[in-house]
């Protein structure tokens, strides 16, 4: 009985240590969760903001095929960007060009395609932007 009492008295230090250990565990786990959640939320917020900015730029794109001419070996296509954002365009038809042409806001750029076309041929010209917008233009090769 005395021995038991003695042991109970010796346990007096244990609650303090266990409280400290529990607090340390809570703080460590909480800190890890806090850091992880903050990082994850920051990344999510940045990704979301970036996707919204991209989407805003996509819907802000405004361009037209202003003029087309042909000189027996080359088809020249003038693309006018009347929107507020710069664009990169590519002609996908009648020839699918590989390179992108940058057209700044309120700028006009000439795209040159080496192609042989017969007179009076009707050509559908498709100009596509890197963000996925496209413009269609119908051109008849002069006789």
């Amino acid at each position, binding site marked *: 009985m005395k021995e038991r009492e003695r042991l109970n008295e010796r*346990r007096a230090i244990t609650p303090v240590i266990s409280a400290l250990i529990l607090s340390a565990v809570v703080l460590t786990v909480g800190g890890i969760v806090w850091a992880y959640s903050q990082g994850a939320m920051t990344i999510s917020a940045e990704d979301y903001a970036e996707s919204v900015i991209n989407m805003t730029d996509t819907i802000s794109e405004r361009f037209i095929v202003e003029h087309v001419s042909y000189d027996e070996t080359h088809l020249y296509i003038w693309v006018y960007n009347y929107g507020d954002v710069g664009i990169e365009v590519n002609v996908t038809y009648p020839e699918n060009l590989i390179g992108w042409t940058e057209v700044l806001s309120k700028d006009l750029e000439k795209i040159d395609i080496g192609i042989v076309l017969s007179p009076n041929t009707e050509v559908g010209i498709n100009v596509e932007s890197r963000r996925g917008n496209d413009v269609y233009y119908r051109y008849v090769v002069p006789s």
Partner: protein
Amino acid sequence: MYTIGTSCRRRGTSTIMGTLIFVGIIFTAVIPMMLVVKQADTLYEMRKHELVSLDEERAMESIFFHLETSIDSETEEPIITLVFYNRGVMAVKIVHVWINGGLREVNYLILPTSNEEFELRNLIDPPYEDTVSFSIMVVTDNGNIFLPPSGNPEYSFIDEVGSWEYHVYTIYIMMTHKRPQLHALITCTTEVPNVIVFNDNLENNLDGYLIGVTFDGKYLVIVTQFYDIELRRVEVTLNPNSPAVLVII
């Protein structure tokens, strides 16, 4: 009892710390993210509304323009004057003029409901020996393309004398506001007897009417409403120097 009481205190401390960490996460991670998302959404919506209004402005751009031609008396150089009438409510800025596929970058501002004239020179290089047809197109800042209704003027240089010729002349009837049951009668007054070139009802819209005639000369334009109320009676002259006229009712 003593042991149970200590355990409760330990759990109480941990619960408080856990709650504090949870509240900290809410305030430092979740709420800022929600604010960023909300702000991005707001910016997107604002941009969308801006674009809708810009597209509306673009659709509202409405100019009527025709070409007046003249010749420099000393050099026989052909001159084309672009005559614009902005019939819209927005100012229109012309940025590109295409002359026979050649680009001229310009900066013409035409205020709402006003007329502006801009002269184009150096159209062809001297000596002016050939017959040249001029195809002209203008492009606005907002990407609208306009063509003259009177077609392509043709400049000829024969026996050292330059002259202009048109194949289509245009009378443009424009309404300032919608009016029902309109009728137009256009008679050529230089022909004897007078030849009626147009005698028809006009639809009730604000786009206006382009009436093309083949010959130059004088024309009497009478616009009536409900068949008997005369709104406008005007005699107009069409010639190579003035191939298009605007009649406003």
